């Protein structure tokens, strides 16, 4: 069982730069041929300040933290037993290449189902930009199998 005392634990905040090259690579990897995600001129023509951070890339930027295993280590989870159960994003402002985004993750909940055979960890992360504006809120639910 994951120790429930970790509910509410605030993980270290960190800041990640948004790099244009990473955004182009992500567009290629996800088959996104819309030029606003790879061509700065096309992005600006569409009213963007620069290449936009696409909707799910905030999750990737959160993985660029200094210690991506911080949460697993805190909770003592073997990552071979981990599954991504749910992912939620709420968007408040666009983010662009050149931005510097601050991530503030916390353990929002830990609960179990099926008599403890499945445990769930809900992590909530606030994302703000270099101007202090709220950009996105993310919720990641990971499932730990004990079968």
């Amino acid at each position, binding site marked *: 069982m994951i120790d429930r005392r970790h509910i509410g634990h605030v993980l270290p905040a960190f800041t990640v730069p948004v790099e244009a090259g990473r955004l182009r690579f992500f567009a290629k990897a996800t088959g996104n041929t819309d030029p606003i995600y790879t061509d700065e001129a096309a992005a600006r023509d569409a009213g963007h300040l620069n290449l936009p951070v696409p909707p799910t890339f905030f*999750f990737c930027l959160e993985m660029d933290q200094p210690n991506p295993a911080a949460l697993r280590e805190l909770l003592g989870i073997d990552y071979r037993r981990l599954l991504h159960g749910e992912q939620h994003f709420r968007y408040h402002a666009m983010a662009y290449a050149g931005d510097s985004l601050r991530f503030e993750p916390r353990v929002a909940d830990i609960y179990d189902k099926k008599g403890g055979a499945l445990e769930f960890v809900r992590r909530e992360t606030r994302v703000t930009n270099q101007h202090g504006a709220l950009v996105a809120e993310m919720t990641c639910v990971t499932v730990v199998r004990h079968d």
Partner: protein
Amino acid sequence: MTELRYDDMQIGSALPPLHTDPISRLTLALYCGASGDHNPIHVDTDFARAAGQDDVFAHGMLGMACLARLVTGWVPQRAIRALNTRFVAITHVGDRISCSGTVVEKLADKQVRLSLAAQDQSGIVKLAGEAIVELS
């Protein structure tokens, strides 16, 4: 992109569907590098077998990126207020993913709720999600 108006939107309206090529090992390798998700279960067959899997399998977030692409193909990204998904089943190498979306509810403030799904070539649902978008 044609501007979509809230007043013209009808419950049951479908988004233009999106179909991917079969998910290849190259797709998974590229997504591993581009996403920063270096979990070997998605790219290293030896590791996957040692972990009790028959083979590597796709990152759930690769499927969610397809759902996002479905929505940004319909409205500009700045119109998206929320994007949510449950990862229902594993996507295997060779699967072809089809993403579909339907308007299911008209909300206040010119927002609509979309029901989203990613299914494989056999119709098996891999991701079940929803989005909230704000129209003009």
